[in-house]
């Protein structure tokens, strides 16, 4: 069984918002179960179902500069590894060192 994250749109024109996640053995049943958990009351007009493994997660406070300091949230060394990757990507994008 794999974890699938589910996003839903409540009414036309509204944003796709993360609603929760579920377990399913494959994509087809994941679609059915997403419909059940976030659509059995006709409460959604659209669903996006994504295997959690396909999500690139970026939540390092050093890199996103959120409006508050949460540095305690990140174990030491986490941001240095991500920073190195981003530096490499920036180099490939030909932007050189920014700021």
């Amino acid at each position, binding site marked *: 069984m794999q974890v699938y994250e589910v996003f839903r749109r409540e009414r036309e024109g509204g944003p796709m918002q993360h609603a929760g996640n*579920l377990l399913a053995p494959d994509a*087809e*049943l994941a679609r*059915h*179960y997403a*419909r059940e958990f976030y659509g059995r009351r006709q409460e959604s007009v659209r669903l996006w179902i994504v295997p959690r493994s396909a999500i690139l997660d970026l939540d390092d406070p050093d890199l996103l500069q959120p409006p508050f300091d949460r540095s305690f949230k990140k174990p030491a060394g986490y941001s240095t590894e991500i920073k190195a990757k981003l530096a490499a990507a920036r180099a490939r994008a030909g932007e050189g060192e920014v700021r």
Partner: protein
Amino acid sequence: VNQFDPETTQALKHLLLATADDEFVIGYWDSEWTGIAPVLEEDVAFASLAQDEIGHAQALYQLLANLEGRGDPDTIAYGRPPEGYRHARLLDHPRTDWAFSVARRFLYDTADAARLDALAGSSYEPLAGVVAKMRREERYHLLHMHAWVERLATGGEEPRARLAAALERLWPDALCVLDGIDGDGVLAEAGVLAEPMAAIRRRWLAGLAPELARLGLPAPPAAPTGACRGPGRSDDFRWLWEQLTMVRRSDPEAVW
């Protein structure tokens, strides 16, 4: 004003009662899985399928009450002795196990789809309206049950053996879903049905044949034998009838 002659109207009433009872009884049997299905996610899905069938039964009983000019869905659904129910023999079996419920669900939903196709252009307008809604909701049933039969058939020795045994056991009774409707010929002539039941049954079986062959699953027997829709009913259905009428019978003047 009644658009049909007495004989056709009688056949239409029998068709409505039989179809409504099919939906009602399978809705009840499958609702037994609510809370105990193999996986929490599937529990919620299978409960929706059972609820849909109860909703369909309600709409069909309403058509029957309108046609007869008396009664309401509840009095029709709950107000008869076991011998008064006209569901197909396929629905006289209890829940049994997951493979059995999946096999029955698969046979029923695919047969029901063929029946709904034959009613889609019905000359009886109110029925055509209800059928149009049912066909939309049955799309998900078919998607879900084809998905399950595929997974049981290819999921290894035990799932495959259980599915095959269930289909072997259920096939003779499944044919009854598209049989046992007195006057189906008259209904076809009046355009209520696109064609008689035997033709709808052949169309249903022809539709299933490639999938059954691809998955190496048991094929149907030639034709149904014996009474398809009562009045004789199984002990299992009598147990279910005891359950579903228990509260109403406990206080006949009560309001629920």
